């Protein structure tokens, strides 16, 4: 153990996390920024609230309108943004490590499309109303179904991780066609509901959504993080991985499962958001050169920040209209892509 790393161990020393000091610093700074951003977002909305009022609403609950707005309307929405963004960021990181390609993400591979197809099916042909509790269930089921199909194809045909992406892309296209078909066949209101869902929106987030999402994150985030070190090993190539003693296939499966669960549940509660899983890991890599474990924390925070600010712009940028966060995630993701291109040339 040298001076540059910090190792966190559980009491019985069975689980240990090794993080470089640099990473810890970055995580701490990001954490502070996140905390501040959450607070700022709580103050902003159609009507700006002063920080003291916000604090009062949070700590000393009364029945004033401001308390209602802060506690029931803004807080669940902001927390949902943080949780969904974090889940997507980590899911993207896991997938990129698993297929060993930095351009992979849950939307590219078809997981988001599978979830979207199931949700759109419910909204259009299934005739469900917008707030139906069946929607998150369907979305998660759709995500897993697609993942299962991709895995089955991969297993039958013995594909490499790279080919896994291509299969995923094919799935995404097929799902996309189905989604378009269902939307075209529906009358206006379900069709517009479906499009709103597809773009990804945190409008009307409520505490029920948070409680629905939290179990998924509580289970799969720790599970993923405990195994992320295998991603570093995998990145060195399959032969090296086996010789270094990590149980390759089991770990791969668990990481894939976690990625699908995280992405599927995130999408289930926030709609078909794309790009966060693609962009957050890249940003994380730009901030720190640490291994996958440290990157996971950073990617989670970057994802949370991206979605938080995208939603903030949607909320206050076009008052009194409330625009979906998904539109602005693309607005943030695109310039980042261009920046990536610029960096690659130089």
């Amino acid at each position, binding site marked *: 153990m040298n001076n540059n790393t910090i190792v966190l161990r559980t009491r019985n020393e069975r689980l240990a996390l090794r993080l470089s000091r640099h990473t810890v610093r970055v995580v701490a700074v990001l954490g502070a920024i996140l905390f501040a951003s959450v607070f700022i977002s709580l103050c902003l909305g159609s009507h700006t609230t002063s920080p003291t009022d916000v604090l009062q609403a949070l700590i000393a609950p009364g029945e004033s309108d401001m308390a209602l707005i802060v506690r029931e309307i803004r807080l669940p929405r902001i927390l949902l943004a943080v949780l969904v963004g974090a889940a997507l960021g980590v899911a993207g990181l896991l997938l990129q490590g698993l297929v060993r390609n930095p351009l992979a993400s849950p939307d590219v591979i078809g997981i988001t499309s599978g979830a979207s197809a199931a949700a759109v099916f419910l909204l259009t042909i299934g005739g469900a109303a917008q707030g139906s509790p069946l929607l998150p269930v369907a979305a998660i089921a759709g995500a897993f179904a697609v993942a299962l199909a991709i895995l089955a194809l991969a297993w039958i045909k013995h594909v490499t991780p790279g080919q896994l992406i291509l299969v995923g892309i094919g799935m995404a296209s097929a799902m996309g066609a189905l989604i378009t078909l269902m939307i075209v066949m529906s009358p206006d209101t379900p069709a517009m509901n479906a499009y709103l869902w597809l773009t990804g929106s945190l409008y009307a987030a409520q505490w029920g959504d948070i409680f629905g999402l939290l179990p998924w994150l509580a289970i799969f985030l720790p599970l993923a993080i405990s195994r992320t070190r295998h991603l570093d090993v995998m990145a060195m190539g399959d032969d090296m991985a086996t010789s270094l003693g990590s149980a390759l296939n089991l770990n791969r499966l668990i990481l894939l499962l976690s990625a699908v669960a995280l992405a599927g549940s995130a999408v289930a509660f926030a709609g078909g958001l794309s790009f966060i899983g693609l962009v957050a890991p890249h940003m994380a890599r730009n901030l720190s050169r640490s291994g996958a474990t440290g990157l996971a924390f950073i990617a989670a925070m970057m994802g949370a920040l991206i979605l938080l600010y995208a939603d903030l712009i949607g909320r206050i940028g076009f008052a009194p209209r409330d625009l*979906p966060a998904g539109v602005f995630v693309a607005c943030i993701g695109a310039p980042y892509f261009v920046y990536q*291109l610029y960096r690659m040339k130089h």
Partner: protein
Amino acid sequence: MTLLLVLISFVCSLALGQFSTSPDALVLALIAYDPASTSHLIIMTERLPRAMVAVLVGASLAVSGALMQSLTRNALASPGILGINAGAMLFVVISAAYFTENVPLSLIWAAFLGAATAASMVFLLGRERGSGSSPLRTVLAGVAVTALCVSFAQGLLVVNQERFGSLVFWLAGSVSGRGLDSLWPLMPLFLGAALVCALLTRQLNILSLDDDVVRALGQRTGLVRLTAGLVVVVLSGASVALAGMIGFIGLIVPHIARALFGRDHRWLLPACTLIGAALLLIADIAARFVIPPEEVPVGVMTALLGAPLFLYLASRKSQSL
């Protein structure tokens, strides 16, 4: 034989539709056109332009895909997958939504610009440090760019809920609704592109060999690549301006053509033209009958047909040609 297929599809496209027309009406409409007859009217004013658009767009997309696959030596390259169609569509949507006219001629410049932008983005993103482009990375870059464009377009749709109908048209693709008068101005473009392709066939044949051989033969690869790229942008852009996003034609048809006719571009490109035309005609006919009496957008049909083939291609051992 493929010519026969195309002709049959063309005739079927004219003969079949929601409004039932008899075969002799078809013959009469072509020979002795009677403006008072509803059947004749439908055939000549609705189905004929529709079939012609399908032929042109199908052929363009197929040739475009063949060129891209030869240029990048990537079996999965096509204007739809590599984001070129999406880029063109996004720019078209923006200009159609905010700058009045819906005539293909005025939208065509937006389409070209969009196609060129998307192409350069994908090209740059697809390069790995040092070694040039890898097939997989290029495809991924294309997917990312497509997702970017589609999500912007969908965002526009949500912001502009009043314009909902027309945006869905562009996103889903359709060959109906274009009159012959919007086709004529674009014909020079298509013919010009065809001419350039004919001239380039020999160069393209050489280009699909190994890099070292190519250099040894002394060909000016840069110029050929650029010209071919330009043709791709023109053909794809024009197709999108006419018919919206229609995917998979550029992917599937070159493979079929290569299986039937080999890799020599002198045969490959004309074959792609014919097969592409036939495929889109068939897809359009099918689109009329899937959920009667409504029509499915033809882009959805091609995707439903093409996705399984894409999956098959993707799970093969190697993605290079």
